[in-house]
């Protein structure tokens, strides 16, 4: 038979395993930190919260506060960042037919960074749904840049992919230059250099449930909507013309996929700054191990990306405690060698 049932079953098993490892890493990452709390205790606390269970408390009240008010929001934030970036990576790689594309490729990163820098420059302290000015500015900067790049590349009702990539590179460079200029002339930014740096390298900065409540529907909704494009993304691997022959309304799909990927990226950037490598390496790893079919690639990358960032953030918080390392450094340090290993091990290498 053409698609072996065995293979289908195997893929469903892999998805379940990825789901289990995402949940396992959630618990694991909640256990470790400045105060260690035992895993059974965390499990009991969680069950007390969500279901009809009523375990007697073998833990101190402060521990419960640490778990629910500090650690869990951060860990879930990490999961959302990883899921969003990995999904956006799949979307951009599929749309641009470029395995080297990542969520930042058409300027989201530069736009977010410039937005965040300007926000740090302003002597305004404002909170919006639990978000400070910096994440809001980063979110808007990312989306505005993609909008700008898309429109710059648009000629006569069409937006050729290659023009979009070029416009993305140019706009990114310009924004990076403006950001560098602002940093070098502003005393205020010089003093806050640490914040700028930590934004650029990626740092999960979730401080409460309010942020999670705003980001979760964006990310989960985005991932669900992305799944609707799986067949069209498969068809788009034949190129825009080839996809059109297969019944895809290419220009419409392009703008929708672009908007979706950018929204997911912007959501991630608003709570973590620029965490690199996740959007590149996770889709790659899944594709190299299980093939390029987007019906599997999208959910598997989302789950894998979530687990990856949770673990990376756990390491970032703990290995040099009390110093926190930016999580983007960890994702690169784990991601790069793993990626190279996959490339060399597997026969399913890419044809360029």
């Amino acid at each position, binding site marked *: 038979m053409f*698609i072996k049932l065995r293979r289908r079953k195997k893929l469903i098993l892999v998805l379940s395993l990825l789901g289990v490892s995402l949940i396992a890493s959630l618990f694991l990452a909640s256990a470790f930190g400045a105060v260690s709390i035992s895993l059974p205790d965390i499990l009991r606390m969680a069950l007390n919260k969500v279901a009809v269970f009523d375990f007697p408390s073998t833990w101190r009240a402060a521990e419960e506060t640490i778990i629910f008010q500090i650690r869990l929001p951060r860990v879930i934030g990490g999961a959302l960042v990883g899921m969003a970036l990995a999904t956006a990576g799949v979307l951009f790689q599929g749309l641009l*037919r470029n395995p080297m594309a990542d969520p930042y490729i058409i300027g989201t990163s530069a736009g977010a960074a410039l937005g965040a820098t300007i926000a740090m420059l302003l002597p305004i302290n404002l909170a919006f749904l639990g978000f400070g000015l910096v994440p809001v500015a980063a979110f808007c900067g990312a989306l505005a840049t993609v909008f700008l790049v898309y429109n710059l590349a648009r000629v006569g009702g069409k937006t050729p992919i290659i023009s979009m990539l070029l416009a993305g590179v140019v706009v990114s460079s310009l924004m990076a230059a403006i950001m560098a200029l602002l940093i070098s002339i502003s005393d205020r930014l010089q003093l806050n250099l640490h914040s700028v740096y930590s934004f650029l390298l990626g740092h999960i900065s979730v401080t409460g449930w309010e942020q999670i409540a705003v980001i979760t529907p964006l990310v989960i909704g985005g991932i669900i909507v992305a799944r609707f494009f799986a067949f069209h993304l*498969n068809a788009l691997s034949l190129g825009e013309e080839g996809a059109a022959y297969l019944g895809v309304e290419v220009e419409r799909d392009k703008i929708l996929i672009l908007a979706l990927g950018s929204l997911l990226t912007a959501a991630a950037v608003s709570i973590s700054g620029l965490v690199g490598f996740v959007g590149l390496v996770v889709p790659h790893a899944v594709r190299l191990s299980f093939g390029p079919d987007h019906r599997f690639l999208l959910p598997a990358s989302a789950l894998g990306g979530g687990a990856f960032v949770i673990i990376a953030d756990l390491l970032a918080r703990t290995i040099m405690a009390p110093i926190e390392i930016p999580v983007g450094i960890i994702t690169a340090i784990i991601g790069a060698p793993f990626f190279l290993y996959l490339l060399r091990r597997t026969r399913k290498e890419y044809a360029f």
Partner: protein
Amino acid sequence: MVGLQFRQVYFSYLDGLVLHNIDLSIKAGEMVGLLGPNGSGKTTLLKLASGILKPAQGEIKLDGSSISQLSRKSIARNVAVVPQQFHMPFAFTTSEVVMLGRTPFLRALAEESEADRRVVNDALELVGIRELAQRRFDELSGGERQKVILAMALAQQPKLLLLDEPTVHLDIAHQMEILELVRGLNMGRGLTVIAAMHDLNLASLYFDRLILLKEGRVWADGTPTQVLTEARISEVFSASVRVEQHPLTGVPHIVVMPKGSAIKRQ
């Protein structure tokens, strides 16, 4: 079965007029070859026929309805295209690529059905590439790839098949194989075929009707015997040829006449 009409169609790219007042009627079940020198508008005409280019003036009708009114999806359910080449950046297998032909029939979150799989299997079988099913598409040879793309097009279960120089990079055995197959589908299933062809002799052998284009205009339209005359070929292609008869079928057979300096001495 689906017929195709061009009514006074004009088309131009940004840098100039490419097609000039094209008036054509292709009936369901015809097998039509498009001939003409490079840049004469063959590919453009095929792109207009598949609806991915829109005419600047005039109208193109697919089975009676204007193609500009049809959605991509409903066009793709009737018309399949085999372009010259596809670049595939990801490691899909042959059967996955052929399954892409089912795209216009699949709903967003549904899985492909048993019926879809049967169509894909039949297409692989028909083109004779069953044994390639689990091989990676990007590792196949040019000839094999062309067959996979043809199988993908057939998996669309089209009524009209458009081919853009389907044999251009292939050796003679693969060229014949592809044309035999397409001709068989045309005769056996009534599939309407329009193919841009470079090789005049193959076109003469396999097509009932040939349309000769020059500088974006229809220069001649008729049977191979009517179209492939010495005068027309030398006029359109600026090459000197002699037209003889194919020893087996009697259709025109074009023999190229080298110019003085290139003639090898005996």
